[in-house]
């Protein structure tokens, strides 16, 4: 082989390409066969899970983010990938559970369960006793589960930044039940910057790093602090007020946009709904930025929305009046005002 990559890597990348083709064609049989063949050929199970299945899943996410596939297609492809993991579960080695007990769950409201599922599988491969709760776990169930099983750690996965306030409540609740929390996923920001802000005991950039960290030894249990200690800026109530009045804000901005943008009068019902949805998303991201006390997640969401609008054939410049209208509504809120100004600047720089 003249390739500089190791044989194992290049084999894994062959299977990655084959799995991508199968998943995007929604061909469950071919997807399962591909991954079983990889295992049979001796590709390391962890590599199969994280680099083949996980790699394809990241590509699905990227394709959705780039508007190359629809939400429905993303769900279909993800479902195939999940089926692959369930099906090969029986073929994976199951070592003795010698390394402590871990509860793996998603932040409530999270629909992307696959990263958590992959982590659960990898931890099982490494000899942990894993309880995988999956997505859509309301906090009361999670806490009841913790009281019943007393794990050494909760691994909490989250990909949506707007769920950070919920994630914070969940982290605090787990810690109040005496269980330390490790978090991971795109929601926690580049480098996991929101993980420590929200009081998590650990953050891991990916499943491998998470397993490595947990293999080093248990996380500290006690973290006796009040949730407000993490986020003193919440005292100004801006988050509370914005999130409580979010639909009112969306309606006002929507009405304002209709006045400012004459082309909106020709929008179809579906387009109008999409616009309302986009505005609601911006308000949600603004609320999340108010919660964590910094604007980078709002700025990157605004830049991303501009790209998506362009891909949909909507002039991205229409975001500018939307942000101005929102800022006018929130003029009495200093933090929201400055976050929106920074988003406006980020948008201008992105569009120029």
């Amino acid at each position, binding site marked *: 082989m003249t390739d500089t990559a190791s044989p194992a890597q290049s084999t894994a990348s062959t299977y990655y390409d084959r799995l991508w083709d199968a998943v995007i064609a929604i061909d469950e*049989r071919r997807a399962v066969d591909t991954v079983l063949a990889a295992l049979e050929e001796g590709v390391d199970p962890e590599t199969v899970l994280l680099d083949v299945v996980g790699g394809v899943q990241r590509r699905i996410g990227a394709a959705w983010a780039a508007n190359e596939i629809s939400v*429905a297609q993303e769900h*279909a492809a993800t479902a*195939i990938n999940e089926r692959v993991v369930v099906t090969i579960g029986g073929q994976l080695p199951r070592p003795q559970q010698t390394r402590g007990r871990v509860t793996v769950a998603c932040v409530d409201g999270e629909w992307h369960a696959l990263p958590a599922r992959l982590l659960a599988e990898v931890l099982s491969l490494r000899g942990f006793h894993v309880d995988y709760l999956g997505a859509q776990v309301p906090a009361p169930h999670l806490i009841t589960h913790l009281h019943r099983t007393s794990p050494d750690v909760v691994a909490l996965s989250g990909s949506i930044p707007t769920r950070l306030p919920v994630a914070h409540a969940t982290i605090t609740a787990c810690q109040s039940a005496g269980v330390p929390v490790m978090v991971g996923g795109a929601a926690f920001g580049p480098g996991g910057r929101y993980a420590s802000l929200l009081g998590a005991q650990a953050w891991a950039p990916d499943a491998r790093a998470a397993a490595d960290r947990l293999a080093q030894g248990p996380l500290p249990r006690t973290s006796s602090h009040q949730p407000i200690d993490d986020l003193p800026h919440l005292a100004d109530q801006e988050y509370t007020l914005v999130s409580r009045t979010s639909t009112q804000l969306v309606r006002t901005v929507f009405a304002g946009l209709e006045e400012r943008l004459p082309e909106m009068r020709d929008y179809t019902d579906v387009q109008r709904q999409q616009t309302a949805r986009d505005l609601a998303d911006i308000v949600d991201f603004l609320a999340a930025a108010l919660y964590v006390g910094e604007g980078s997640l709002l700025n990157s969401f605004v830049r991303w929305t501009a790209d998506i609008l362009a891909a949909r054939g909507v002039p991205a410049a229409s975001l500018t009046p939307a942000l101005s209208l929102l800022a006018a509504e929130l003029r009495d809120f200093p933090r929201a005002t400055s976050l929106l100004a920074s988003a406006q600047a980020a948008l201008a720089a992105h569009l120029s």
Partner: protein
Amino acid sequence: MLTDPARRSAAPAPDLGWDSAPSPALHVGADGVLVAVNAAARAILHSAAPGRHVDDCAPDWLAQAHRDRADEKADGAEHAGRVDDRTFLAQPVGFPDGGVMWWLIETTDVSMLREDLRAERERADFLRIASDELLTSLNVARTMEVATELAAGRLADAAWIIEPDVRGRHTAVVCVRGERPRRVMLDVRAQELPGLVEALQGFPPVPSRWIDPRLAPAWVVPDGFGSMGSVVVTALPGHGVPAGALILLRTTEQRVFSEPEEAVARLFAARVGAALSAARLFEEQSSITDILTAQLLPPALERADGVDFAGIYRPAQDTSRLGGDFYDVHRLGGGESLALLGDVCGKGLEAAVLAGKIRNTLQALLPMADDHRHMLELLNSSLRSAHETRFATLVLASTARVGDTVRVRLTRAGHLPPLVVRGDGRVEEVLGKGSLIGVLPAIETSTHTIDLAPGETCLLYTDGIIEAVGGPLGGEMFGEDRLRRALTECAGMPAEALVAHVLMLATDWLGGAAHDDMAVLAITAPTGPQPHGAGTDGATPAR
């Protein structure tokens, strides 16, 4: 006139009450020799007398204070120390000739109070921390670990918590200071340790009991503990049930337990007992809940006889996992299955119990699954004769493969019409009338048959989906139109992805608002031959 310092220094007389002053006073000359000693000072320093050197008759700390003063060291320092079991603060008053009058102010009461206060604060802190930590978990094993760790950290050098025996064996946790608690099964007789049997019984209340370390059996001494100095056995007061016993061990290097320390140990034991009984009650109750819940939760669905089934469920209330929506898939043999999805009016546990009864009744009626109408009539009269005030809506779907396609025979009883997602993205509604179950003595039904080509889906769902109120502008119902429009993009989607997608759309629409129970069931004709290990691998995670 008191202007001659030399005279004043040499002779402090006239006395003016100095000798009988309540505080001890020593007049020490510049050379360190005592000039005069008042009565109070003589009473505590028996050998102090004029003419003797301060080093020979005063306590070391006072003699040192005098030297320091002479060397002009420790300026402004406080001089204090003990005389026998009393404590004094020494205040110097200097004379121009270098002599010093040392006034000793007694501080015995103050320092005792300070010491008591410090010890009391420490005990209160310990009990506060103990309460905080014991309150965190409702897990019995974890609570025992926390309790032994706390006890071994503050009350003793090692601590045991021993549970009442189960078939002759005791579950126990032991923790040595500085180590992690260990869980052990003790296969020992409680009688071996004096006081343990009484403590484990928990009633009548017995005081904590001191054991002669020589009487303690070998198993009580943890590995590497060293030689044992004192042992105390204390009952953990449970609330109605024996909670176990706490054993505290101290090494010979440590002092024995003082009276206040024993009092703290008793208070600590009371908190541990309360925490452990709460944890036990929670454990029992939640295992009962789990067993009952498991009976009422919708089943995990599988691919059956070449037909894909997938279901998803979200109850109205986050606190219980149960609600009034339900679904089931029964294999009937001969390649046929009966799928059903329904909705009992109301939500919560009462609705869930009735939903469970309906599922059981339908299961008993499976032998007549060929005749949907008959099945529904029997269910109707069964519900009516049980004097149920609630009613239900239901869809029955019998499935069988015919070549590549799946033939579905659908009968609706007051339920929303199923939707069919065709291969080209068209979404069709399966019409037909049918009455509610459990209201009128006679019911109307009509049965329709549809064929699903590979990749096509027949979707059954409850009203919680389309009656979700929210949306970006707020106050709007999700509605059937929006659902149908969303489904046009779902052609060829696998059953599991489709149900998850529909539930996600409705949940996103809600944006966190309250909602009714929601359930979705997909019947899908698989594309192509079945994958490896097919037949039973189509599990949908149940919640």
